[in-house]
């Protein structure tokens, strides 16, 4: 196969995957609506479990990353902008870099490492052990019982984790700033708040919600794609993790670029300049 054919095949394959993922999200929404009166308790239980596994259990790693990222960004900011005179620029840098760019990406990275892999492995194993077949024959929709709660619970967990990351990064970043230089709290906080814009919040919300739906759908898709051999499970796990990471980076880059082009949200470079 020549390189052009290979490229074409890769594009077609990628397009097919995107269509499958969109189809999975659509099916999850449709079955959730159509079967809304069936097994509500089981549905709620699955959502809560997903929020617990993806959100609550990830608080430790997320706070640790927030502390490290906050310290690094503040230290770099102080070196770049100076101390007292640079407090406002530092606050804006923290907001834009940490909360809008690095935070959602790092949090989603933690979720990929912990939950996307776990979901792909769990669903793959359920396929191998014929658990999904058992659900189908019971009249229980696996899309509604297994996929929809993971999509919903995953997005809810990501929203919560981003709030945790933001609070921890700001608090620990400011603590680092205080330790390094005498930055007044009021100046720092007002600079952080002044950098918050509606367009910026919208960009972050899209990154979290679309990113969360996307990576969870990728996890479910690869889990369900296991056909029956146990050896397919590790392959599904690694594909899910890699594809989720690629999707996430493409999504974040696209949204940041779009926000920059539209001009509603300042980019990190604009802050530094």
């Amino acid at each position, binding site marked *: 196969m020549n390189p052009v054919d290979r490229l074409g095949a890769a594009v077609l394959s990628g397009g097919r995957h995107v269509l499958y993922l969109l189809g999975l999200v659509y099916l999850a929404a449709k079955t959730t609506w*159509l079967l809304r*009166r069936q097994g509500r*308790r089981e549905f709620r239980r699955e959502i809560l479990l997903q929020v617990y596994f993806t959100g609550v259990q990830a608080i430790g790693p997320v706070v640790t990353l927030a502390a490290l990222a906050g310290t690094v960004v503040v230290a770099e900011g102080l070196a770049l902008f100076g101390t007292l005179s640079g407090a406002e620029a530092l606050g804006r840098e923290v907001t834009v870099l940490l909360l809008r760019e690095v935070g959602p990406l790092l949090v989603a990275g933690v979720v990929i490492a912990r939950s996307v892999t776990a979901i792909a492995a769990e669903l793959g194993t359920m396929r191998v*052990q014929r658990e999904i*077949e058992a*659900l189908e*024959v*019971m*009249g229980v929709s696996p899309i509604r019982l297994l996929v929809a709660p993971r999509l919903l619970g995953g997005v809810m967990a990501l929203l919560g984790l981003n709030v945790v990351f933001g609070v921890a990064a700001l608090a620990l970043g400011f603590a680092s700033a205080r330790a390094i230089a005498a930055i007044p709290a009021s100046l720092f906080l007002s600079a952080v708040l002044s950098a918050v814009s509606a367009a910026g919040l919208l960009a972050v919300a899209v990154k979290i919600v679309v990113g969360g739906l996307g990576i969870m759908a990728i996890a479910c898709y690869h889990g369900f794609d296991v056909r029956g051999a146990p050896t397919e499970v590790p392959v599904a796990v690694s594909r899910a993790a890699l594809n989720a990471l690629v999707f996430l980076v493409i999504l974040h880059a696209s949204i940041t670029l779009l926000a920059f082009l539209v001009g509603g949200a300042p980019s990190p470079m604009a802050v530094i300049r």
Partner: protein
Amino acid sequence: MSVAPVLVVSGRVSVVAEGERWSLGPVTVRPGDMLALRPAADRPVPEAALAFARVLATLASPSSGRVELFGSDPAALPYLSLQRVRFRLALVQESGGLLSNRTVAENVALPLRARGDAGDDAVEAEVGAVLGRFGLSDLATRRPHGLGAAAAFGVRAARALVARPEWVVVEGVGDWEASRGGSRSWELIDAAREASGTACAVCLPGAHSEFEAWLAGRGGRVETFAADTRAPGGAEGGRDA
């Protein structure tokens, strides 16, 4: 007045397993009927038995021919109608099938809870009663991976019967004890047949003289499927429904 059949295989239906085509039929099953499906061949063919079990449980369509369950072809039904058909049947799998992240009691309760038509107390009472009948009360809080093969089959049978299905498909003889000439699960499946007219098909990978004798003693019958000499076609094990 004649009773409407549960299952009608008009003409011959075929499935493809391990590259070979196997065909069965015609077969009619009425409420209270019990039949075993097994290969006419001398050698066991578990893949073909499994493929027919999947077809009879609406999980797959045959490669050719038509199967009607409760008067309609499951392959032609939209999802909600297919779901209503599935609420009336149960499959007892030979292996796997129990949700590993749930306890035995939660597994047995799943068909009732997922349909959402019974309160918590009613579900717990029903599950407790079924587990008691199957002698599984002590295992109620255990996870499936901690169960032996016979106990796991008992749990699968309990889960199948808890919602009082009209049609039960069983893969293999499960916890059949040769020394006893039966098992508690099979006695309870037979009791459900007598009490509520549950029809049952057991898909056997090969001949099983003891089980077939037990079945004959209860008015059951054996139907055989045979290798089809036509060229194989269609998806392995039938098309997914």
